[in-house]
Structure formats: C-alpha cells, structure tokens
C-alpha cells in the first residue's frame, strides 16, 4: 500500500469529520467547515507526531514566490502551502481529491444570476501571517485579482471572463469592475456562465495580496511574502535553500512538521541518491524510469516509491494544414500503425497505453480504448486510399529527454512498417516546444505531453484542440486542428453547468478527436517519487502534486535515517 493511501481507520475518522462538517455548514457554523477539512489529516497511517524538521530537494530555484507569477510545476507545492486562497481541494489522494472545499472563504460560493455571479464571504479565521498579523478582507482578494492583469500573470487569461477582464487585458481599463468587495463579502461577476470558474478560483493566482506590502515593495513581493497558509517563508537564498516554518497565524489545523528545508540545485538523480543515503526526506522531482526499474526491486525502497496518476497524455500531433497530414486518412493510418502497448515498456511500466485523449484519471472520464493494437493492413489501405500507396517521408520532431528518443524510435519503426519514413529530429525540450508553438515554422509532425492544470477536460480539449485558441506564438494547438464541430462542442461543454452532461459532451468530443486523429495518444504517464520511510502523509494530490502541510514524521522514526537531515 502506498503511503499516500489512507488506512481504514483514518478513512472512517475523516468520513465522520466530513459529515460533521457538512451538518455544521448547513447549520450556519462557518468556521468548522474549515476546521473539519484537516481533521485527522489525509493519510495518518501509523503513529505520528507533531513537530520536527525535514529536508526536501529541488533542482531549480522556485520561479517566483509570488502567487500571481509562479506557474512552475515544482514551485507549486511551496506556493500552495504558503498562499492559500478562497477554495481548496480536498486533502486526499485519488479522484476524491478533486472535490472542492472552502478555504479562506467560509463556504463554497453561492452562484447566482444564471452562473454569472460568484458570492463569497471571507472566513474570520483567514489571517495574514508575519509581518502583518491582520485579517484577510475581501479587498485583499480584489487587489490580488486586479494585480493579475498588471503583473503579466501567466494564467491571467483564465480570468478574462470576469467583467472588465477583457478590457484590462486590452489595456483599456484598470478597475476590473466585475470584482466587488464589501467588508467580508466578495462578489465576482462574469460576462458569461463558466462552470469551471470555481476551479480557477482554487488556483494560487487568486491568493490574497496585501496592498500595503505590494505598494511598499513594488514588483518585489517574492522577497516580501506574507503568508495565508500553514507555512511561511523564513529564508530564501537563491541556488541554496528555501526554509519554510509553520505560520502561527494560520486559522486551520496547523501543519504537522515545524520546519521544512528545501535544498536547491539538486538534480533528480542526485536527489534520489540523497534519499537513499538518508540525506534528504524526499523532494520535488520525479525518479527516472531507470531508477524506478532499479529500486522497485529493492525490498526496502519499493514501499517508499509513490507511483501516481499524473493526469497526463503524451501524444503525437500532426499539422493538419500541411500535406500529407491534411488528409484524415493519413492521420488515421498513423494511428493504426502505432502499437501503443509498447509505450509502457519504454517508460519502465510507468504509464498506460493511451486509447483516448483524456487521461482516465480525470474524474468522470470513460476510457475509449481506441487503436490500442496496431492494424498495419488497415494503415496501408488508408494510405493507398489517400494517394500514398508507397507511403511518404516526413520528419518527426521531439525532445532528447529520456525516454523520449526511445519512444520515438519505437514509433519510427512502427510507422516504417506501413511505409511512413519518419526521420527523427530531436532537440532540447524548451527549444523544441518554442519551435513547435510558432505557427510560422510549419512543423509537420511531433510529440507533446500535457499534464492537467486543473481537473476538467476543458484543460485538455480547449487548450490543445480548440481551433479558436490557435495563436501565432506560444501556440498549444500544435497541429493547428480547427474542426468546427469539435470547437462548438468544446465551447458548449464549457458553458454546461451540469457535470454529467458536460462530461458526456467531452466523451463525444474525445471520440470525434480519435476519429479525426489530429493527435495520436501514446501513453498516459504516471509520476514516480521516492521518500524516506520516516515520512508519512506523502501522496500525489490530483492537482497539487504534494501537500507539504499533510506531511508528518512517524513516531517512533524507523531506523536508518541519517543525522544529516536533522536541524
């Protein structure tokens, strides 16, 4: 059993706590809804203690310590534990973690006026930590939302449907009229109903920012953070370390561990070695397929490897505006030629063959299981019908990060068997993605991988396959797929409040995408991390990756931990 999976006892305690929370919420006792979320912790699977110090590792410095600017995958665990916001996800592993709960708001928003008005009341427990030590107000959220449009927030377009958002994006306004703050009440008005807006409000981008601090140190909030979460930043020395200490002002259940030191500049392979030598407790990195293959056979460490669904799809994309991929039969031939069952082997078992575009870990998603086995006869027939009886030559672009080259070598051979002669052109990831996202480069054929930003299929379909989202630069719809039916259905789903109906629409979109084959899904990857036996509460949250406030030290600690990790 993975350390992230709660025991039966813990589950019962949490269920009781959740039931209690629901009853109290219904009765109007707002504070306890926040309290109940933490009751029992997410994964207390043994004797534990409060307090202690742990060492984590990370390769790069955090991109920012400003919630409006940070968008790095592995900056997120730090940002999300320091900066809480109106809504949070439930602290449990698996799909249940997609459930939204109030955080700094005292309840989930009341959605009025046909889904265009979100009404919050800020919890009296919501407080800023040092050096402010004051209550968080609705005005702090309003300031934070306006600030997103000022500071070039990488996720600002998520909030373009807030009334005034488009004007702010265009530089015609600075007031963001759709956000109204009256005392503890916060109102957010949208230009149109947006069922996934509640998920956007759970992102750290909308964490409250104290105006007095931001104005005193303009453009330097990363150096003057003010916490609203269970931890605060005590020290940040670039390229050396980040030290998080418990925030005494946090209104919810305090974090278990007193201090978390994050050592920077540690590569993934070195990070694994540090864990194995007892010099760190874990970190913000993924183990390589090679390390996984080696350590999963180790009786001590096999139990310390956390393999989790990363809500990911890795896929081949084809430029549908260029010959020969402008013919759907050619794209279908590509889909028929590739044996996806080989892909999990390439990834050392860390993934599932993809027969659909949406990752099956996405709540409510049903698998399609298309093209899982190769059908070379059909592929050849489709190529003949499309006018390519002898196949054709093309270039398949990708990245050099392992096992990317091996993955594409498999695809290359399988394509060659039906007559598609693909030359591999592999490069550094950032260079490749920049090139592929530049429509003027007319890249014909490539590979891409997408991890969910939030738990809704729109994050895959709208971002990656909606023709209305094609941009000249930094384009994510790499194949320039622009099918009116798919576009309309994506947008219809995005405006549908009923979850089951929305998911049904997305299921149909997935089926049509698999028919038209602008993309050929290869694998839904799993993530793989390793941590010390003394550490409990480790699980991959469906969107949050790792929740630092849920980590705790076992009591007594298992033997074999080096003194190096002690403060």
């Amino acid at each position: 059993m993975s350390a992230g999976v709660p025991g039966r006892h813990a589950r019962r305690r949490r269920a009781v706590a959740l039931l209690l929370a629901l009853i109290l919420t219904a009765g109007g006792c707002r504070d306890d809804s926040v309290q109940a979320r933490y009751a029992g912790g997410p994964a207390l699977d043994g004797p534990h203690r409060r307090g202690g110090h742990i060492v984590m590792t990370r390769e790069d410095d955090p991109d920012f310590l400003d919630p409006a600017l940070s968008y790095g995958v592995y900056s997120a665990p730090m940002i999300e534990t320091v900066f809480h916001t109106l809504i949070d996800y439930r602290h449990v592993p698996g799909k249940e973690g997609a459930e939204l709960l109030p955080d700094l708001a005292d309840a989930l928003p009341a959605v009025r006026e046909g889904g265009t008005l979100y009404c919050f009341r800020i919890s009296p427990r919501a407080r800023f930590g040092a050096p402010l030590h004051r209550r968080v107000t609705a005005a702090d959220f309003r300031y934070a939302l306006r600030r997103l449009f000022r500071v070039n927030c990488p996720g600002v377009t998520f909030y373009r449907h807030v009334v005034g958002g488009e004007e702010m994006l265009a530089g015609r306004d600075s007031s963001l009229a759709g956000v109204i703050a009256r005392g503890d009440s916060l109102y957010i008005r949208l230009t149109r109903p947006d069922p996934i807006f509640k998920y956007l409000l759970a992102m750290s981008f909308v964490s409250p920012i104290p105006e007095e601090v931001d104005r005193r140190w303009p453009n330097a909030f990363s150096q003057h953070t003010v916490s609203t979460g269970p931890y605060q930043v005590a020290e940040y020395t670039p390229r050396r370390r980040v030290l998080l200490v418990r925030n005494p002002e946090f209104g919810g259940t305090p974090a278990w561990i007193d201090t978390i030191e994050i050592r920077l500049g540690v590569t993934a392979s070195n990070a694994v070695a540090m864990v194995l030598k007892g010099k760190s407790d874990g970190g913000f990195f993924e183990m390589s397929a090679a390390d996984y293959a080696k350590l999963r056979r180790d009786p001590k460490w096999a139990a310390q490897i956390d393999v989790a669904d990363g809500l990911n799809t890795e896929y081949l994309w084809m430029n549908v505006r260029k010959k020969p991929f402008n013919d759907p039969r050619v794209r279908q031939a590509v889909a028929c030629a590739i044996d996806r069952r080989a892909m999990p082997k390439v990834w050392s078992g860390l993934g599932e063959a993809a027969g659909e575009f949406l990752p099956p870990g996405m709540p409510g998603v049903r698998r399609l299981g298309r093209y899982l086995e190769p059908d070379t006869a059909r592929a050849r027939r489709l190529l003949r019908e499309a006018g390519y009886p002898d196949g054709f030559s093309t270039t398949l672009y990708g990245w050099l990060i392992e096992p990317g080259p091996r993955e594409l070598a498999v695809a290359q051979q399988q394509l060659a068997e039906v007559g598609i002669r693909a030359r591999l052109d592999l490069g550094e990831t950032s260079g490749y993605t920049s090139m592929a996202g530049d429509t003027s480069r007319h890249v014909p054929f490539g590979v891409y991988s997408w991890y969910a930003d939030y738990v809704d299929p729109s994050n895959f379909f709208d971002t990656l396959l909606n023709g209305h989202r094609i941009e000249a630069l930094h384009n994510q719809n790499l194949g320039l797929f622009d099918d009116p039916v798919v576009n309309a259905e994506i947008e219809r789903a995005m405006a549908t409040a009923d979850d089951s109906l929305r998911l049904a629409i997305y299921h149909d979109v997935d089926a049509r995408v698999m028919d038209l084959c602008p993309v050929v899904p290869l694998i839904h990857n799993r993530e793989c991390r390793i941590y010390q036996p003394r550490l409990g509460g480790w699980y991959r949250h469906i969107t949050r990756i790792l929740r630092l406030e849920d980590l705790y030290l076992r009591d007594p600690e298992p033997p074999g931990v080096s003194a190096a990790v002690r403060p």
Partner: protein
Amino acid sequence: MSVLEPLAAPPASPGAEASAAPAAEAGAPWAEVLRRFRRDRAGMAALVVLSVIVLAALLAPWICSAALHQSPYRLHIMDRIAVHGREVEVVSDDGLPVGPNPRLLLGADLLGRDLLSRLLYGARFSLAAASLGTLLAVLVGLAAGLIAGFYRGLADAVISRFVDAMMAIPVLLLAIALAAVLRQGSLGIVVLVLALVNWTYLARIIRAEVLSLRGRDFIEAARAMGASDLAILTRHLLPNLAGPLIVFGTLSVAGNILLESALSFLGVGIQPPSPSWGNMIQEGIAFYRVAWWITLFPGIAILLTVVCLNLAGEALREALHPGARPEGLP
C-alpha cells in the same frame, strides 16, 4: 618536432635519379620496418585483434543476416523468445530487456534489439568515423604543415597562429560546439568534426618536419636542378613524411574512436537508431545496474580497439625509428 628521421639517407650527389625521394626508391628500408614490427609481439597481437575487429565490422551485414539472423535496427520490444525451453519477453512489462542467452548472445537492448548485431554495426560506424576523420585530418594537416614549413613567412605565421588558436580550445568543447553548429547526426558530420579538431596536431608535426628537411642537401640539390616547388613538395618532401603520417594516423584513429564515442555519448555524434559504441553506452548507462550488458560490451569493444590501436601504433613507431626507444626499455 617529430622524432622521426628521413626513411633513407639522401643521395650523395644531386642528379636525375636523386629527384626521386630516397624512401620511395628504396624497398629495403620498408622490409626492415616490417621485420622490426614483426619482432614486437604485443604489436603483432594487437594487429591480429584489430584485423578481427575490422573484419567483423566489414562483414557485419553478412554475419547479422546469415549467422545471427538478427538486425541491428529491428525492435523486438513486443516479441517473445524461447530461452532454455521457457518463453520470455524480449523486453519485460517494466522495460527490462533480456540478458545474454543462447538466442541473443549478448542480450538485448532497451528496445529489444540484438546487442551483438548492434555491436558489429557499431564497429562499422565507430571505425568508419574514426578512420575517415583521421584521413581527412591527415589531408588538411599535411597540406597546412607543408605550406607553413616550406614557404615560411606570412603563410607560416598565419597558419601557425591559427593552429595555436585552435589548439587553445579544449578538444571536446570544440567538437561539441562544431557538432552543434553543423547539426548533429550523420556520419559525414561526425567525420568532419573529428577532422576539424585533429588536423592542427598533424599540421604542427609536419611543419616542424618540413622545417628540418627543407635545408637538407637533397632538397638543395633538387632546387639547384631547377625542380619546381610542387615537385619538391610532392616528390622529395612528401615521401620523407610517410613515417610521421603513419604513426600519427594510427594513434589518431584510437583517439578519434574515443572522441566519437564521447560525442555520441553526449548526444551530438552518430544519432540513433544508427548504432555506435558511444551511443550504445549512452543508451544503457542509466540502466547499468539492472541491464549491465548494454553498457559493458560496447565498453569492452572501445577499450579493446583503442588499446590495440595504441599498441600497434607504438610498435609501428618503434619499427620506423628504433633509436627513439628510451634507454632501459626492452
């Protein structure tokens, strides 16, 4: 300055016969070189091993298809084979390839390809890259060294300063930069990169050798007889440079095998799926604890080839110039 002397003494008096290079006209010195080489047991053993490696590389297509019934490119990631009466996956579900066994003598790589076939084809790529790179370096280095040493003056200054500048850059760094600029991948590019980083060494050796030869009597005699510069360069100087060229070439091939392997290991040399010993090691290095055979066998191949080339090169140097052997050595 090369340790090598002219292969034969220059003629005593300039004449029509003297216009031919001394080494070229004499068969006896080469026979003597061969005799001395044969006496070097290590050198002979190395030559035999090298011959086997080269032969295996040349016959790789036939060995793979007729004897091994394998292809170095064919992926067997989804296949199963019978080993000791038991059916096993060539690559297991968790991505580990089958090790050495009677069906696949050196085991399989991470994509289920036969490692022995790839090793043989890798020898073709590695040896071809190293040999052709050396050949090109010899041509460029020889021309530059001859011009600099013979004409001296401005030509010498320009060429020598350029060579100095090139040699100030670390070889591997220069090779990586060139490979990146020239776009990675093909054998031709790797050959070009190897030649570009190596010609400078030979140019320096040849220049020094030419400087010592150009004042010798047989050159003066040829000049007095009215021989043109081209004739002196090609008919008098060139034959006397055969020794340094052969020794440099032999030792340089060994160095180029290592450099090509390093480039391929770093991802800027021969590109997969074409096998080279360097990229084979690179492909398996992360898995060395659970699939050791992927890195071990190409590593042995590189080691064996380089050691043999160095031994053979040393033996050749000794055979060409026995006086250079330091005192006290057997």
